[in-house]
């Protein structure tokens, strides 16, 4: 048996430029990989199923190398979750959707299947639905404990999900999440879909990250074809992705403060966010820049005065953002709510390989733009901010720093935008080739995996939202906090429901 670490040997250039080799492994190697995950010598980047079996994407933190293991099966596989907690929900989802059972798994409860789909394992064995017992929430017993169920519909305008709090007085002793309400069956819709439709679905997996998703999906298709994308297209993708990051971070900074009843930040940040969206609309013709990135390049070039418009936007944000940061930093009543609240330990962030501001506020510095570089970021200068205090305040500061970095990145992109075409036709053929994409969205790294099918289709695809490895950590971060601080903690994580529920 080869040392499992040797199977994780793909450099960023390998993953980015060529089909990803399938490494089918047997029981021993699969279990060895699960144990390596349990020892934290490797990180889990994704765990999903296809008709080929179960796939596991792994990363070695020290070397930055990636590997993709496949355990061929049509019924069961050895549980990874029994060694590595972050694998438990993905395993439950695999069982719900495909019917592949994780043997020895510590948690066999359904996850995305709420017993309402009409069938079990829809794209798998598709067995008719049986009466499903009520969901078994984890017990919480003790004197003077009470439970507060919240959702799936929440008080604000947010996505659906259920939270079950067990509290002692005001203090949360356990939060249990129940997700899956936004499950749309994207995996089965991707099966056999023409590439263009696949791109469209990818861009609607989590609307706030539509650019990053379309990019990750496109990367996967381009890698499977081993094709090169024109430089100008890469630069424009970078421009869109940074505008998306700016819009989301600005919105989040305001919304987190709003959940601490500090409406002024919300109002001012909301104005800046709207300005970003309007600039995106003017330049690319869509406020969220949906459907702009597609395999081969981008759908449209910058309009003639586009660079000037974006540059005005930069000036506008720079003129106002500094005062807002000072307002945040000089408002003790606000800091009183954010400092020390919802603390996530660096240890847990590392174990779950949490990406984005959740990871980077808790000492895990990984950023796909740096850790597994892709164009144009391999030719741009930027910093990846990282802290280790891990509270709501830290997650706000990471966003603040990233806003500054994005402003600088957009400026560099405008200054050095190469001329040339923005699209190259996809080569034909390639059926059976697999490709991996990894893009840093505003909330963390999005992983896309596809297998090319016949005649310009994709055989199968999978999109892994960063939230898979952040949602479970919210349960840990809220422990010992008061229920009233939950909205604040939740917003500071801002996990995607739709991206997770697929």
């Amino acid at each position, binding site marked *: 048996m080869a040392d499992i670490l040797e199977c994780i040997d793909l450099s960023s250039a390998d993953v980015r430029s060529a089909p990803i080799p399938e490494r089918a492994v047997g029981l021993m190697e699969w279990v060895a990989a699960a144990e390596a995950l349990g020892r934290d010598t490797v990180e889990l980047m994704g765990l999903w199923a296809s008709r080929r079996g179960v796939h596991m994407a792994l990363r070695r933190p020290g070397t930055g190398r990636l590997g993709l293991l496949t355990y061929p099966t049509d019924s069961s596989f050895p549980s990874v979750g029994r060694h590595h907690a972050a694998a438990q929900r993905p395993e439950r989802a695999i069982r719900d959707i495909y019917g592949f059972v994780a043997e020895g798994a510590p948690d066999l409860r359904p996850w*995305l299947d*709420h017993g*309402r*789909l*009409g*069938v079990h394992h*829809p794209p798998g064995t598709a067995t008719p639905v049986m009466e499903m017992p009520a969901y078994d929430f984890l017990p919480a017993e003790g004197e003077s404990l009470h439970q507060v169920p919240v959702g*799936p*519909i929440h*008080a*604000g*305008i*947010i*996505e*659906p999900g259920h939270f079950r709090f067990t509290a002692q007085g005001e203090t949360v002793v356990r939060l249990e999440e129940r997700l*899956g*309400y*936004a*499950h*749309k*069956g*994207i995996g*089965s*819709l991707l099966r056999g879909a023409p590439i263009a*439709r696949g791109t*469209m*679905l990818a861009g*609607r*997996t*989590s*609307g*706030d990250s*539509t650019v990053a998703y379309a990019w990750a999906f496109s990367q996967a298709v381009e890698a499977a074809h081993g094709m090169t994308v024109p430089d100008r297209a890469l630069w424009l993708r970078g421009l869109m992705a940074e505008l998306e990051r700016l819009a989301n971070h600005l*919105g989040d900074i305001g919304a987190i403060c709003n959940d601490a009843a500090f409406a*002024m930040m919300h*109002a*001012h940040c*909301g*104005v800046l*966010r*709207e300005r970003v*969206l*309007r600039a995106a609309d*003017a330049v690319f013709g869509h*406020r*969220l820049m*949906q459907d702009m990135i597609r395999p081969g390049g981008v759908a449209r070039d910058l309009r003639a005065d586009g660079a000037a418009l974006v540059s005005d936007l930069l000036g506008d944000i720079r003129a106002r953002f500094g*005062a*807002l940061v000072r*307002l945040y930093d*000089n*408002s003790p009543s606000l800091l009183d709510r954010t400092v020390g609240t919802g603390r996530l330990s660096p240890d847990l962030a590392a174990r779950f390989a949490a990406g984005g501001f959740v990871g980077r506020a808790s000492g895990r510095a990984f950023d796909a733009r740096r850790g597994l570089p892709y164009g144009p970021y391999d030719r741009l200068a930027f910093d990846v901010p990282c802290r280790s205090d891990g509270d709501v305040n830290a997650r706000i500061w990471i966003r603040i720093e990233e806003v500054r970095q994005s402003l600088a990145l957009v400026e560099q992109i405008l200054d050095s935008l190469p001329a040339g075409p923005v699209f190259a036709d996809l080569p034909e053929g390639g059926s059976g080739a697999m490709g991996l994409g990894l893009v840093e969205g505003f909330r963390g790294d999005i992983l896309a995996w596809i297998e090319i099918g016949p005649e310009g289709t994709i055989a199968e695809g999978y999109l892994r939202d960063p939230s898979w490895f952040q949602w479970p950590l919210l349960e840990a971060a809220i422990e010992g906090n008061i229920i009233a601080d939950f909205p604040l903690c939740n917003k500071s994580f801002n996990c*995607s*429901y*739709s991206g997770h*529920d697929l």
Partner: protein
Amino acid sequence: MRRLLLEGLLRGPLGEPLAREEAAERDALGSKLVRATRHVLGRSLSIREVDAGSCNGCELEINALSNAFYDLERFGLRFVASPRHADVLLVTGPVTRNMAEALQRAYDATPAPKWVVAAGDCAIDGGCFAGSYAVQGGVSAVMHVDLKIPGCPPRPSALLRGLVELMEGRSND
């Protein structure tokens, strides 16, 4: 903070750097809306938003209605936390099977008279998720819909305009 507050006072309402047309359209929309809502419900209309499994793109634009540019509360429109306080259910998403019951319960909890607005292509007919085993395929698959606002996602200005149309339709009754 004092400087920001003072600036806010002196600067007045937000300018419209992008397009006068859009500003003009919004003001026109605004005054129509004021007349219409007064006719039906006095001065205000309370909206309960329900995400029935959207991709969250629609929510982003619905949230934008509260920013200083659209500021929907000027028109007597406001979002409420409970369906029991609502006149309108503003529904997004293809209505996933996992959300159908929650949506129905929110509807049942809303006192009459009530209206249902399907916002976004998904809410209208399932959008690009139509045909999946996991979705009902739009709001009208599960309840009567009074108004459909297309778009993926609908622009905030389209959402505002849509609400006006709803109110005007009602006021003709």
